């Protein structure tokens, strides 16, 4: 056994996994996260940090194109797993490890990527990109737990990809500077910020591949520095309704407890309190794993008190409020929750509700029906632009997590091929605002 393969073995003990959750597959994502924790693997925050791209669910047309771009941004050694059923997660991850440590396969992947970087990048063409997306993520590839190293990357698409994505970072108001192109990217334009100083204006889409982010959500933001000037939200849906996970892991009220815990995990993690987020995550995973809920009530209550007592958290979240001024959305957006829009109180409310549900097994008020849940999500989405404008990125993330959006509730739609093409030509949806020229990798 050579040094190279030993390094590979050692590296594979802590694989970094970038998770893409398709709306409706939150349970698969949670099971995957639990398995990652069990193995001591890491959930990656960005494609550059990931070895394994884990797609939970069957993405629709647009989301599939996004996954494709993200796949191009993984530095390699890399591998891809598509989970469409909750079973076999462990088996698929073992297969992924075998793939990651397979040097000859990874080398082949790397060589075929580098070869495609032969500079025919003079004119990034979106049509080629579209074709690329359609090929790469053909439905045949997407069977449960399939692992693919995908050494068959298209040639000549990568520079186009990169330039496209960078375009999103910088497009913005830069149209008047069209003659000033750097690597095909127009220069950012300027504009007065909220303090009346001139700042660069960037148009950056956030989502759908971000950690602690509602599945499939894309928020197109106009940014000045880290302040959001304006925002527009929409949801990239799953392939079809019928493709959704057949049976939920748990019945109510356990379902509701899992959801409340998951929302708390996201909010605590974004607030930067890793240890509390981890506690919430363990409670969530225990609930998913089917422990007797009444035993969990005490632990949930302990977490709630810990959150309530934290001075730093109170100070950090002070004044972050999901209520928007307009009255009509106010009542519906927060229906079912008696607590106010202050996200710290909302968080405590979630944990309190979970404790009560775990303790008594009864809802205080009847759970929302499918149609009501869809309406609620729609209402909350509608408030997003108003809610986010003028906030900084950190606050915006907290606000979105504080809303507790259930993106799987809204009726799914299949983006027509025409739409998909249109948005692709405009640069599509980036993952995280990162622009990767995957052709220029230095081995």
């Amino acid at each position, binding site marked *: 056994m050579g040094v190279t393969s030993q390094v590979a073995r050692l*590296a594979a003990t802590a694989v970094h996994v970038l998770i893409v959750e398709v709306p409706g597959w939150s349970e698969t994502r949670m099971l995957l996260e639990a398995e990652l924790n069990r193995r001591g693997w890491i959930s990656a925050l960005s494609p550059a940090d990931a070895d394994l791209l884990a797609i939970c669910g069957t993405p629709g047309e647009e989301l599939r194109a996004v996954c494709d771009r993200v796949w191009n941004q993984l530095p390699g050694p890399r591998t891809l797993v598509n989970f469409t059923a909750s079973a076999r997660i462990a088996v698929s991850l073992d297969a992924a490890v075998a793939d990651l440590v397979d040097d000859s396969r990874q080398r082949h992947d790397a060589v075929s990527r580098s070869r495609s970087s032969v500079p025919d990048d003079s004119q990034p063409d979106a049509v080629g990109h579209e074709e690329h997306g359609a090929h790469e993520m053909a439905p045949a590839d997407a069977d449960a737990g399939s692992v693919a190293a995908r050494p068959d990357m298209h040639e000549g698409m990568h520079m186009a990809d990169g330039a496209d994505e960078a375009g999103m970072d910088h497009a913005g108001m830069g149209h008047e500077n069209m003659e000033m192109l750097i690597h095909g990217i127009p220069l950012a334009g300027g504009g007065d910020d909220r303090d009346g100083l001139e700042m660069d204006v960037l148009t950056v889409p956030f989502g759908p591949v971000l950690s602690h982010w509602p599945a499939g959500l894309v928020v197109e933001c106009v940014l000045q520095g880290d302040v959001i000037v304006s925002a527009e939200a929409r949801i990239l849906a799953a392939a079809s309704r019928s493709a959704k996970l057949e049976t939920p892991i748990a019945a109510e009220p356990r379902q509701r407890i899992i959801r409340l815990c998951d929302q708390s995990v996201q909010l605590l993690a974004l607030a930067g309190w890793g240890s509390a987020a981890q506690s919430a995550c363990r409670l969530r995973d225990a609930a998913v794993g089917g422990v007797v809920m009444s035993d969990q009530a005490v632990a949930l209550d302990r977490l709630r008190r810990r959150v309530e007592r934290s001075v730093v958290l109170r100070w950090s979240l002070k004044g972050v409020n999901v209520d928007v001024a307009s009255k009509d959305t106010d009542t519906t957006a927060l229906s079912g929750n008696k607590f106010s829009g202050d996200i710290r109180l909302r968080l405590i409310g979630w944990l309190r509700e979970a404790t009560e549900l775990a303790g008594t097994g009864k809802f205080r008020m009847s759970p929302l029906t499918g149609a009501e849940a869809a309406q609620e999500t729609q209402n909350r989405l509608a408030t997003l632009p108003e809610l986010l404008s003028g906030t900084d990125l950190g606050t915006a993330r907290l606000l979105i997590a504080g809303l507790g959006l259930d993106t799987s509730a809204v009726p799914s739609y299949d983006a027509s091929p025409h739409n998909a093409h249109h948005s692709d030509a405009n640069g599509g949806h980036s993952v995280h605002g990162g622009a990767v*020229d995957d052709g220029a990798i230095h081995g």
Partner: protein
Amino acid sequence: MADAIVQVSPVWAVLAPLGLLLFALAGAGLNGALVGRSVGRPFLSGASAPLAEAARLLRQRRQVTVAADVLLWRVGAGGLVVVALLKILVIPLGPWTLADLDVGVVWFNTMDVMIWALFWLIGWGANSAHSLVGGYRFLSLAVAYELPLMFALITPAVAAQSLRVGDVVTAQQDLWFVIWMPIAFVIFCSSVIAFSSWGPYATAVGRDIAGGFLTDVSGVDRLLILAGRYAVLTAGAAFAVPLFLGGGAGPLLPDWLWTIVKTALVLAAFIAIRHRVPTIRPDRFAEVAWIIVLPAALLQVLIVAIVATITLGS
């Protein structure tokens, strides 16, 4: 212990990177173990995590974003380890030091100002939104911590009436400075955690901005940055020893070993705090730093200056 600090031959400087590396690795191991424990894995299984991570990053290809400012990006990534090494030059190990500069305290301060540039360059170089926001966040944090840090550094120097680190150690023979200048000590420690972008001050690499200035860094660049963060944290912990904790002073053990033990304890405390305290939002922190912490630091210098003048006069 009465002996002054002596400058040793520059040949010994080859050991400095090794020592720093071992400390950084131990710190990363402790962090890995604490992370492992928080996800319910055995304490020790996480301790090898930094080795696995290093292997992973050495094996990973380094990726470049479109129109990245590659030169500046790489300077930022590689610079952290260099800065940490330059910092420990002036830190005495027991009775020995590599560079007995007569402005040793200022030297340390100069190096931590370099970190401003390095983190900013990493954020800037990637040419991507999250990375840039990470860079902005670090600068806003730096504006908040730097002035209090400067006054915290000056305080022991005022008491010792010298900027030479050796003189600061000698001045603590009767009483460690941490005892009668606790405010300066606390400010110094939290500033070290801040300039390492660590723990409660890690907003520049926050989860809410997809890893901030680390978002687009991969392969060996990422390894250098992560190692560099541990290295500057270690250097900061090590500098607390001659500045506030009496240098190598202590019973039974030789001076050099005391320096190592104290450094390890301070570093362990720095690592552990990450797992206890939530991240502090940078905009909120600036307010507190300027309105409460800075006046407190000035008050501390004032008290120390008065005491130093009186004892000198008598």
